[in-house]
């Protein structure tokens, strides 16, 4: 098999040029200025945007928690359905995810608008109108709506493998239904929980579309900040690279924490 090693040569070149070098360029841009001198100003400038970082982390954490709470019972009842039903139901749950996520977010734009359907319907009952769009609540809603399937899927795939007889054994040995859930099912589904959390948290903390479409101009997130430095009016790739670097570090920290909770042989993704 030794000769086969060289099959990977084209990819290795590709990997170095288009994965490694670009990331090194991010790091390089983050620590230099326009004239190419080393500086820590970009990194320290990131501190000015601490409020945006705090808001992004906070909103992403709320969205992740809501996703976990909503998805857990869904995944559980999916995994307890009869086998031939499971495939179809899973398909129905995952179907919306296959639609372009800009369109899904746009759907909420029309629903939440000041003259949107929700306010109209509430108006008939004599309530509202409420200001829903362009609030941080709308941003969290958008995150939950878009990323909920990312939470359901890993949870389901772990729970589906839980042996039914383990649950029966627990109740035979005197566990009540609450005990079964918290002492058997939750510990056994821990790898699904941790990978669900990363799969929701990472896109939620770095999004710029959801905040732009549902949050108006007043709910900037880290993603918006980065986008503005590269394609927006605030053009400053050095600052943008520094922010990206900090974002990567935050995610790395979160993933390391998550790895502590999952068994050694489980790899996150």
């Amino acid at each position: 098999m030794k000769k086969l090693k060289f099959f990977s040569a084209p990819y290795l070149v590709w990997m170095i040029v288009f994965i490694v070098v670009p990331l090194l360029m991010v790091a390089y841009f983050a620590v230099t200025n326009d004239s190419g001198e080393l500086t820590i100003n970009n990194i320290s400038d990131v501190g000015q945007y601490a409020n945006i970082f705090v808001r992004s982390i906070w909103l992403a954490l709320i969205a992740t928690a809501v996703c976990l709470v909503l998805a857990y019972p869904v995944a559980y009842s999916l995994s307890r359905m009869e086998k031939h039903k499971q495939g179809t139901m899973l398909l129905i749950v995952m179907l919306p995810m296959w639609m372009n996520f800009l369109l899904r977010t746009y759907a909420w734009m029309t629903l939440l608008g000041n003259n949107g359907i929700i306010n109209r319907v509430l108006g008939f009952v004599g309530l509202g109108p409420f200001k829903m769009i362009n609030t941080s609540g709308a941003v969290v809603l958008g995150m939950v709506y878009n990323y909920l399937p990312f939470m359901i899927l890993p949870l389901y795939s772990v729970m589906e493998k839980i042996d039914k007889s383990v649950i029966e054994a627990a109740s035979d040995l005197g566990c009540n239904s609450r005990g079964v859930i918290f002492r058997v099912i939750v510990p056994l589904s821990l790898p699904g929980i941790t990978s669900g959390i990363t799969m929701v948290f990472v896109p939620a903390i770095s999004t710029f579309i959801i905040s732009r479409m549902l949050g108006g101009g007043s709910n900037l997130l880290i993603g918006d900040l980065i986008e503005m430095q590269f394609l927006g009016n605030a053009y400053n790739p050095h600052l943008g690279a520094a922010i990206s670097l900090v974002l990567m570090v935050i995610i790395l920290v979160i993933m390391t924490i998550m790895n502590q909770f999952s068994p050694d042989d489980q790899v996150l993704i």
Partner: protein
Amino acid sequence: MKILSKIYFAVILMFLYVPIFVLIVFSFNETKSKSVFSGFTLEWYEKLFHNRIIISSLVNTIIIAIAASVVSTVLGTLAAIGINSMRKTPKAVIMNVTNMPIINPEIVTGVSLMLLFVFFAARMSFQFGFVTLLIAHITFDVPYVILNIMPKFKQMDPNLFEAAQDLGCSPVRAFFKVILPEIMPGVVSGFLMAFTYSLDDFVISYFTCGSTSQTLPITIYSMTRRKVSPEINALSTLIFITVLVILIIKNIVESRSAKRAASFRGERA
């Protein structure tokens, strides 16, 4: 308890589907209102089919997705074969780098590639467009191909390749006769995954496409930024129906082949 969980499941499904159905309903609305349905029309569909920008970006998206997924499948298959025959340490290093585009937030991958392209564009006088977009798509597609193929090697007997050569196969022939058929399911699912990710990608394309080569998600994004015409609803409806049909066909084919496999096993037993 059973009824309660069914109701909960139904509520979650409503949450997932109501926004999409509202989009679909208003694609047939006579006026441009997003909240009052005044009458049935197919006008927006007609406009959609005559919208040059949408049609050309759709064609562009399909070309990019096909080209990127074909190239990344070839590149990724060769890479997986090569990586598999490496020693433990280089294997681990390469797999960690390969995981980067998957773990990293999309915006960081997009920005890093943009920095690379800006660097070369300034020195080699080329422009952002089809080529940069294609390179970016291949870059985020290849890891998915590799990750789909790698587990297949675990199921394969490592001696098969040498056995084929001992029995007179040339290495090339042994590759096509032995290795490729064994890993084929991984190659196919990797290809399909790469294709769908390419079709759907917005964030990375957004940073690497420049102004000449638009993909459908980017056109959708610019449509949501302007005064919106219900054409976008018509487009959503068509995309939703396409996805629905594809997934139903996939489901039928899979359950048929599962049945066939089951009856085959039954006959043999």
